[in-house]
């Protein structure tokens, strides 16, 4: 029995469908991310679960109870808002205590619980500050403590890290993951940042145009994207439109420029117009003639731990990343060979249902 169950949840605004037939099961203690570009319906889904938006159709079950028509203040769900939504006129401790006060927890107990929550996010020394006097990361942690102190059955995170700078965001990712595992609260996060979704979640729900496109563990979603949308939204990729020349069973012959490729075709792909997807990190630069393809380096970006290359090849432009192993890489204008391992190329349906 799943802990949170969404049953063909739909939200329409006039003729616009924000979320269509969303069905999803989340197990107790699981960390699930809704990942998609802006306007894909992920925030609307979150708001329906929180109770701020009324679904046009469908039901929401939490812990075996139908909460579809429950008021937001009776659901007991902990929410961390994108803007943090701290109460600016209350101190950190008062902010965290608010939920306990609403539950009429006696002051002696609530003091202990507020302290524990602030300890969890390592802010116990700032309990008398006002939100205005805190940094972005600290505000974020107060918001998390405030949501967790009421011991919610479900924690909703609405783009929790999008207002933080890159370095802080990485630290918070690790911290958020640790706290979630420590507390064990079932968590649903909404994000448009694929690296955030991949690094934090047990499962990723990729959404596009109001529909669920793929539900998978982060590694599988990255390695076996179901279609063009997932492969280009989750991570970077090189995509090529191809024609299947010959197919015997699940093995197909595909022509990629001058290069003839043999590839296994998943069953759900129909027609002979397909897309080939190769991740930039699965391509390797080598001497000209040593790889499957030849090309010429057009641009090169040094990114510290790796280089990002743009290489012109006979099949078109390729993005290639090379790890920095302490040796200078190929220079701009250099002729190179491009090599990849068998099985690094994925085949995707051309008109994938998304």
């Amino acid at each position: 029995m799943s802990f949170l169950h969404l049953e063909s949840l739909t939200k329409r605004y006039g003729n616009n469908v924000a979320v269509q037939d969303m069905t999803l099961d989340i197990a107790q203690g699981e960390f699930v991310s809704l990942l998609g570009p802006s306007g894909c319906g992920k925030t609307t889904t979150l708001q329906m679960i929180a109770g701020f938006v009324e679904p046009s159709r469908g039901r929401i079950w939490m812990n075996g109870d139908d909460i579809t028509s429950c008021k937001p203040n009776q659901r007991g769900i902990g929410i961390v808002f994108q803007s943090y939504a701290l109460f600016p006129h209350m101190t950190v401790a008062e902010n965290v205590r608010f939920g306990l006060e609403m539950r009429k927890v006696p002051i002696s107990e609530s003091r202990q619980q507020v302290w524990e929550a602030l300890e969890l996010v390592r802010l116990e020394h700032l309990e008398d500050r006002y939100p205005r006097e805190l940094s972005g990361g600290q505000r974020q942690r107060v918001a998390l403590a405030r949501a967790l102190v009421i011991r919610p059955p479900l924690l909703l995170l609405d783009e929790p890290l999008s207002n933080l700078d890159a370095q802080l965001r990485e630290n918070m990712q690790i911290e958020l993951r640790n706290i979630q595992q420590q507390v064990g609260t079932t968590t649903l996060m909404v994000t448009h940042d694929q690296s955030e979704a991949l690094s934090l979640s047990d499962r990723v729900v990729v959404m596009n145009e109001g529909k669920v496109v793929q539900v998978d563990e982060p590694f599988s979603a990255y390695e076996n994207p179901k279609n063009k949308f997932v492969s280009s939204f989750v991570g970077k990729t090189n995509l090529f439109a191809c024609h299947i020349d010959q197919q015997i069973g699940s093995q197909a012959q595909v022509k990629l420029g001058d290069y003839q490729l043999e590839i296994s075709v998943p069953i759900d792909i129909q027609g002979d117009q397909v897309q080939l997807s190769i991740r930039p990190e699965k391509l390797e630069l080598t001497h000209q003639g040593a790889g499957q393809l030849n090309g010429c380096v057009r641009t090169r970006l040094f990114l510290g731990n790796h280089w990002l290359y743009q290489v012109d090849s006979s099949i078109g432009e390729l993005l290639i990343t090379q790890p920095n192993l302490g040796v200078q890489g190929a220079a701009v204008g250099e002729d190179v060979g491009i090599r990849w391992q068998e099985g690094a190329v994925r085949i995707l349906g051309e008109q994938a249902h998304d």
Partner: protein
Amino acid sequence: MTELTSSLSPSMSRTRTINPVPWLLSAPGAIFFLALLGMPLIMTLILSFNSFDYSIGIVSSFGLENYYEVLRDSYFHEIFLRTYSISIAVVILCIIIGVPEAYILSRMRNPWRSLFLVVTLAPLLISVVVRTLGWVLLIGGNGLLGKFLEAIGIAESSAGNLMYTHTGVILALVHVLVPLMVISVWAALQKLDPAVEHAGLSLGASHGTVFRRVVIPQILPGILSGSLIVFALSASAFATPAIIGGRRLKVAATAAYDEYLNTMNWPMGAAIAIVLLVANVVVVMSYNRMMERRFRRTLG
């Protein structure tokens, strides 16, 4: 800091001259302001030190006897007390009506919100005198209110006559000034993060509790500055008390007017005006100071 560095650098300090352009550019406005507001005010101040004789008229002398009289005479005490008690009542009523009104307006969806905002603010486009005369039609001796009370049989028609009463003046002033409270609270509500209310709800608070504990404290600066505007304007209001309060229910502004135009005791009228001005400035400034101290840390 910039001044410090500029005075330290030798080349700057030697060539430092006053740039005339900003002064010249602001001169027309400044002169206009001084001529039309500053001068009459100074002349009123000088006038208030003169004395008045019923047979000769204004005697240009310098004395504080007008102020003695205003501050000592129980007749004036009563007028000032009335002025400020009416103002306080108007402020309280404007808060009670204006704050929920602004909040409800801000929660409306768009075609209705714009429509009702215009309806709320439209009275500001109509002259205060016209609006007050409208109230006379309603609450006057033979007004609609009296006729209505008589028709439904709960009171005689004279009960609907609120002319020359505190209630009548307060009613009309609230009507005139409530849009200003709405504007002020509205501005504060625009700065409110809507997610904060959702946060309150998600933590288990009812809508009422969210309004009381989360919304009100954040829009308090707006309520307080609205109160200031309403207080200052009702304490110095002239048209509404003059029409509805008349001679029987004098406030400071109408008392000053009567001194000028009926008694012809201009120095006394000037003294009343100055006392009213000083009292208003003191109230407004101390109130402002109190507010700033209270909100500097929390709301910036």
